[in-house]
């Protein structure tokens, strides 16, 4: 099936993105990336030892994988920008996932600061993927600010609750056609990932659900297939769900009875 995802001018065969936090061992993380076929992973700059010892998280990421540094720890736009600069100077590329969080209990993204950071960094040539609370006006502002994709949260980070934001994400999918929509956060099962893709999301990012599984590589593969199945169903244009059984003799049939 020739169905490539294009983000920031780069082509991706897999629509499953994987976060690298929370794994109990880095070897399992490496295997999970490999078994899922994911071509884009996120890494928190705060977890990268700039001295790059053998245990550095980067040495466990297969070659050819796009590494997107996230700004975990940033509380405002200025801090997110600074983290992106450090990442670029340290040689970790130009792909940045903006996470601006100034509430440590729920880890909800600060949409206003996220727009500011997106604007600054995309102006500096970064490929910017902002993590956001699904709000249409904010999504439009992010597109205007130069975002390469928009990443609405499915539900609270790490909650495994799935698509609690479903209705709002559907609005984004319907209205934001300039850039891909990547559902991020709260995706707890492969079926949640499939559901997001069936709705028409362009990609799904997961982390906790894979890292926390007894067998992370197997779970990562399951997620990749969930994403694939959902995407295929979307392309195949599923029949709509109906509230009632479709009557075999239509209600308006009498109009045509002669």
């Amino acid at each position: 099936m020739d169905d490539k995802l294009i983000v920031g001018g780069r082509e991706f065969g897999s629509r499953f993105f994987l976060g690298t936090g929370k794994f109990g061992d880095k070897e399992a993380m490496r295997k999970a990336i490999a078994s899922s076929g994911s071509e884009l992973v996120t890494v928190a700059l705060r977890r990268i030892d700039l001295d790059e010892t053998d245990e550095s998280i980067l040495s466990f990421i297969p070659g050819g994988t796009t590494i997107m540094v996230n700004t975990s720890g940033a509380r405002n736009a200025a801090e997110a920008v600074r983290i992106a600069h450090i990442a670029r100077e340290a040689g970790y590329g130009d792909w940045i996932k903006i996470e601006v969080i100034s509430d440590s209990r729920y880890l909800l993204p600060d949409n206003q600061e996220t727009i500011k950071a997106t604007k600054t960094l995309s102006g500096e040539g970064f490929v910017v993927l902002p993590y956001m609370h699904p709000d249409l006006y904010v999504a439009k502002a992010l597109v205007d600010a130069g975002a390469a994709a928009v990443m609405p949260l499915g539900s609270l980070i790490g909650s495994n609750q799935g698509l609690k934001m479903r209705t709002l994400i559907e609005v984004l999918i319907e209205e934001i056609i300039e850039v891909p929509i990547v559902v991020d956060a709260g995706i707890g099962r492969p079926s949640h990932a499939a559901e997001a893709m069936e709705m028409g999301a362009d990609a799904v990012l997961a982390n906790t659900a894979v890292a926390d599984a007894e067998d992370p590589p197997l779970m990562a593969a399951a997620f990749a297939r969930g994403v694939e199945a959902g995407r295929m169903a979307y392309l195949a244009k599923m029949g709509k769900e109906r509230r009632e059984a479709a009557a075999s003799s239509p209600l308006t049939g009498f109009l045509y009875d002669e």
Partner: protein
Amino acid sequence: MMSKSLSGIDLLHLTIDDIRRIFSVDDRGLLEEMAHAARELTRRQFGRTISLYAPLYIANYCENECVYCGFHASQKSMPRSKLTMEQIDKECAALAATGNRSVLILTGESRFHSSPQYIRDAVRIAARYFSYVALEVYPLDEEEYSELYLAGVDGVTLYQETYDRARYDELHLAGPKKVYDYRITAPDRIARAGIRHISMGALLGLTDWRRDVIALFEHVRSLERKYPGVEFGLAFPRLRRVADDIHRYQEVSDRDMLKIMCSARLFFPRVGISISTRELPQFRDRIIEFGVTKMSAGSSTRVGGYLEGENKYEDGQFEVFDPRSFDEVKAMLRSKGFDPVVTDWRNIVNS
């Protein structure tokens, strides 16, 4: 996740009243359920990772008379010293060479011997060796905290010791620490100064631990609402010597500790919980499953302890009960399916 416990307490939506109930009963079934819920929640929030850090004592001059502490002012047999900046540099280098990237700098309370300027200069040095620099020093003014933040401080640890005002007065015989209010308002000043991590706790055993833990939880919860951008941490140090009739210390059992840890995790899903080398290895290795996110490793509690090498566990502020090296603790964590996290912060104020 199952959240309704046997006794009808909704473990995932605990209230302070629920915690009071939990602390007042001895219910093995309930504790088992709490342990399961706390473990699952910790894994979901933090994954199978534990961050490592080590304390660095740079001075032990102290003007306080805290009856429970080995550093107190009238303890004349305690050799007093403070490191020069050159020595601090060497200590940092020695500690960093073990692989550690996260340091907690400690001093006694003496504005004369370990002034805010002295601490600030030490922080500047440490920031060159470590990706995360925290402080455990006497409470300061907001402006002083701001200066330390700009010098590279990522976190501050400050324990209230006890929230029982009368008992606090009784245990702190003399010295600047005697002023309860200046200490209890310090987290507000730290937060307003922009410092991101504030670790709080009570020294369990000074009085009824139930009351202190409840007061601590209420304090942290109110601060969370006031300063949502701050990441709060909790620690539950307990007194080791309780056979002391004069001071009427109270024992905190391992079972109590587990109850406290699990309640903390369930009440504060995202809060970091640390456990020091004051606990025995066998207890540390077990309790990490139920909410702990940070532990000290390869610790010396002696001024200049990392360079001296020998006798480093004697004469410290408190005895180190877990003498394992940094690498040994990492190996233990791996054997239990945890990834020991050495780097989990990047100071962006100074970079």
